[in-house]
Each structure stands twice: as C-alpha cells, then as structure tokens.
C-alpha cells in the first residue's frame, strides 16, 4: 500500500500544478468534476515528469486515475515495474 507521504505528494501536485484542492484521497475525481478530458491530460503529463515514469497508452484506463488513492497505487506499481525492468 502506498504510504502517507505519497498521498501528500499527489495532493500537493494537484494543488500546485492544477490548482485544485481535493477533499480526500478517496474522492472520485471524475464524478466530482475535478478531472475532465483537459485536466486528465495535464495530470498524465505531469505525473510522467514528476515521478520520472513513462505511462503507456495501454495503461490509460480511467480506473487507474479515479482517486488520489488509485493514482498513488498506480505510481507505486509503475515505478516499481520500471525499476525492475531496468535492473
């Protein structure tokens, strides 16, 4: 499970890069209107920069980005995978 600092990092990322304050880590970002097709693109591009990962098209499932909790889990699994691939 992703730890607290990662949640905070993503929350901070939302507030600093997208100027959006997310009520909780479980908030459904699409239902709440926080993510739409425009901000979603920003999110993906910024996640790539911020966490130095490459997100492939096949991974762009809305389910992976539905809440801060899910984004954190995705980012964790992802950086783990990339490190494993590089090793």
């Amino acid at each position, binding site marked *: 499970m992703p730890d607290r600092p990662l949640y905070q990092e993503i929350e901070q990322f939302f*507030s600093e890069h*997208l*100027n*959006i*304050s997310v009520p909780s880590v479980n908030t459904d970002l699409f239902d709440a209107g926080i993510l*739409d*097709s*425009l*901000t*979603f*693109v*920003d999110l993906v*591009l910024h996640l790539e920069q911020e966490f130095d990962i490459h997100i*492939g*098209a*096949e991974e*762009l*499932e*809305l389910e992976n980005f539905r809440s801060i909790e899910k984004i954190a889990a995705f980012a964790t699994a992802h950086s783990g995978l990339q490190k494993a691939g590089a090793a």
Partner: protein
Amino acid sequence: MIERLQEWVSLRALQSPDSVAVVCRGEKTTYTQLDALTNQLARMLIEKGCQRGDRICLLLPKSTAAIVGILGILKAGCAYVPLDPACPAARLTKVVETCGSEWILAGSGSAAVLDELVAATGIRVGWLDRDDSAAGLKQATAEFTLAGLASVSEAPLDPRNTSIDPAYIMFTSGSTGNPKGVVITHSNVIHFVEWAVDYFQLGDGEKLSGHSPLHFDLSVFDVFGAFAAGAELHLVTPDLNVLPNKLAAFIRDSQLTQWFSVPSALNYMAKFDVVRPGDFPHLKRLLWCGEVLPVPVLAYWMQRLPHVTFTNLYGPTEATIASAYYTVPGCPEDLRAAIPIGAPCAGEKLYVMDDNLQPVAPGVTGRLYIQGVGLSPGYYRDPVKTGEAFVQSSCGPACGERLYHTGDLARVGQDGLVYFLGRADSQIKSRGHRIELGEVLTALNALESLRESAVVAIPTSGFEGAIICCAYVAQPQRDVSPAVLRSELSKLLPGYMLPTRWMAMQELPKNANGKIDTRVLKEQFPLEIS
C-alpha cells in the same frame, strides 16, 4: 442543390431508406428512422408554439438524440443554439438571455446546470433522452419527452424556412466578457458542404467521424457532410477523448474513412504513439482545423499512414466551418517549415491587406480578410460588434465587397498560398477553443477577493498550446490561494478558460501610462514556472 439543411436527410430516406445515418455507442439509426423521428419532434415544437426563426437551445451530450434535436429544430423552421454542457450555468444564462430562447432541448448529464438555467431564465424544457427519470427536476419540469413523441405523426412537414434563414447560432468568447452569437444561415452551410463533398469526393459508402463537440462549428461539417453524401456519421463520445488508445481503436474498429478534428486530438494520439504503421486501412483522409498542427506531429501521422490524404482547413466560425484548405503533397522533410492555410474554398476569397484595406506585397505580414458565400450575416442582436468585424470595403482590391476581418495575421508566400502568422489581438486558441483573454479578465474582476488582476497567454512549443497565466493582487487581509481562485472562477467560466498558472504579487507591473505592463508580466511567468 438543396435549399435547407434538413432536406439531405429526407432525400436519403427516399433514395436509400435502410442505409445507416448515425452510429453512436454501437447503436445504428437509419435515414428513414432519423427522418421520421425528426418530423415528430418538429411537429411537437410547432404544436408547442415555436415560430419560424425562433432560437432553440440544445443542452445534450453528443448523441443520436442531439442529432435528432438539431434536425427537428431545423424542420420546425427554427435555429439551433448548441450549448456546452461543461459550461457553468452563469455563462449559459447569458447565452440564453442574449438569444432570447424560449425552449431548450436537454437530456440527462446536464440535469444540474439545467435546473439552474431554468430557475434563472424560465426557459421551457423538452426532454430528449430515453432516460426519463430526471425529466421532472425540481425547477425544470419537461413539457414533453422523447417517449412522448411516439404518438405524433411521422408525416413530412411543409418547410417553414428558406435558405437565408438562420440554421444555428454559435457563441464564441467575447472580449468584453459577454459571449457573442455568430448567426449562420442554411445557405452558408450548404455552400461549404457542397464544396467539400465535391473536393473530397465524399460518397455514400463513407464513414465519417463526429469528433468535435456540437457547439464547435466543425461538427456542422461532420453532421451535414455525412448526410449530404448519404454516409454514416460515427459519433465519438466524450469519454473516448481522454484515452488515446481507445480513440485509435475507435477509428480502427469503426472502419472510418474520414477523421476530422482539432489538432489536440492528433497531438494526443501521437504523444502516446498509438498509431501503428499502415494503421486504419479504411481511412482515406484526415482533416484538421481550428489551430496549427505542429509539423512533427503531422510527419508522425504521414509516415505511419501513407495511404491517407492530409488536409489542413482554416476558417473562423464567422465564415462557416472553413474558408481555406491545403492538402499536404508529401511528408514534410523540413520540420520547421510552416504548413500554409492554403487557398480559398469555392465561392470565397482571402485578402491579406494593411489597415487601410490596401494589399501588402507577397511575403509581408498583413491582416487576413475573408469575403464570400460563408460570411455570417453578423452577431445576433449586436450591430456594434457586427459593424466592427464585418466591413464594407470602399477601396483597394476588395472594393465594394463585404469582408470579415478575422483578426489573424497572415502573409502570401512565393507559392501564392496564404500562411497564418498569429493573432493581431489578445484572442488565443487552446486545444481548439477560441478564448478572448478579455472574457477571462472580466470574470476575474468579478471576484471580490482580488484587488487587481491581469491575464497573459504564453505560447508553449509543446503539447498544451498557449497557456493562460494570471497575476493577481489580493485584497488586504484576504488569504487567496490559486486553488480557491480557480474554484470561484469555475462558477463563471468553462474549464478550458481557467488560468493554469497563477502568481500572487504585491503590485502589478505598470508602464508610464499607469497601464498594466503585460510584456513585463510575460517575462516573469516563465521564470516562475521553471
């Protein structure tokens, strides 16, 4: 040539009744079904008292029902006013009030904003959605529903409109804060579509994309280009837009023969590299409009799809869909060489002139004017803005002609083609959206927590296009964060108009005249960003 846009559908229903007109989420509607259903809707609207020339709003996500709405409105002799379902109610209220609409056709997905709109304007509601559950909202009680149309006669109606009647009014960002309504007639659209069907050799076996939202005028070509050719219109639903791999799969699986969109969709698919070499074997042509497509992105597409023809279309809403075209002859070798906007479509002329409507020499930057069959009669009930943008030339090469002043800067190249060079004012394009920075500033000025604010656009070479940056000075003792400001502003402006970069300042930089120095501001922003 037909006289009214709706006639293409009725014509096809007679000629090939079982051919498919619209495909949405796998559901197919034939020309016969579409013709019958829109006759029913038109009869209902007339029964409810709609008169020829009435403006009827459309607040529906892109769907077969929305296409039914458009055609039903036209058959009733009225003009459709497509609203952006993602727009806040405050801005939509301005639009409804400006065009004096008494009716709105709506469906689920827009229920919350509809309720506010009805409370503010008293507009009457027709519910065009199979899902009736939300039709009786607190404020917005629908006076008829899609299911209720079943009992209305399907028989054809005598036309109530003519070719010079308005077909639609589309609202674009206005520099003083109020959106302006561009009136477009049946004749305007028919001229463009007839040209396009002929130039692109559109045939009845074709499958065309419907990617643009219905409040963008590119959608008018998707819809009526398909109907004029007797082709299938494949609606690209908004949820596909965020997923480039799904978008590519849609083109592949639907066996589209034509793709038409703003460049951002093409950028996005290229960025995630979802196009395979030789992909989309059925695709014949790919068209884009509304913004400059970066040449490296064009090269990406052309390298992968050598069997496809690539055409750049150019034109503001005021001159109907597009006024110029350029079909790229081969994959660009020099990635820094600009792609021209090209030559005028049939019945239109492009002029690059100076402020006194005198021609400028080839290669010299001038202002771009458009003349011809696409020109709007003007902005709805706004003679002042109409007079500013549509001018009667009394001298020079365009003497005696009515011209639309695009506000775009351009030059004529050695090849005789026109090249776009940017804007002469503070209008920007972001992902195909046309944004007047003045409208953003007007909304910011309405926020009580700010003492002073300024907006500037900074072009980026990357994916995002121009980004909107806001510098602000808060009122004393007020703690305002960008997140709070963004949230307040989102009640007044649609998401694409919200600034993405914010900078709190003690004082805004001023020039000798006491005006905000936007040049200095622009220099400060990139430093802040990096």
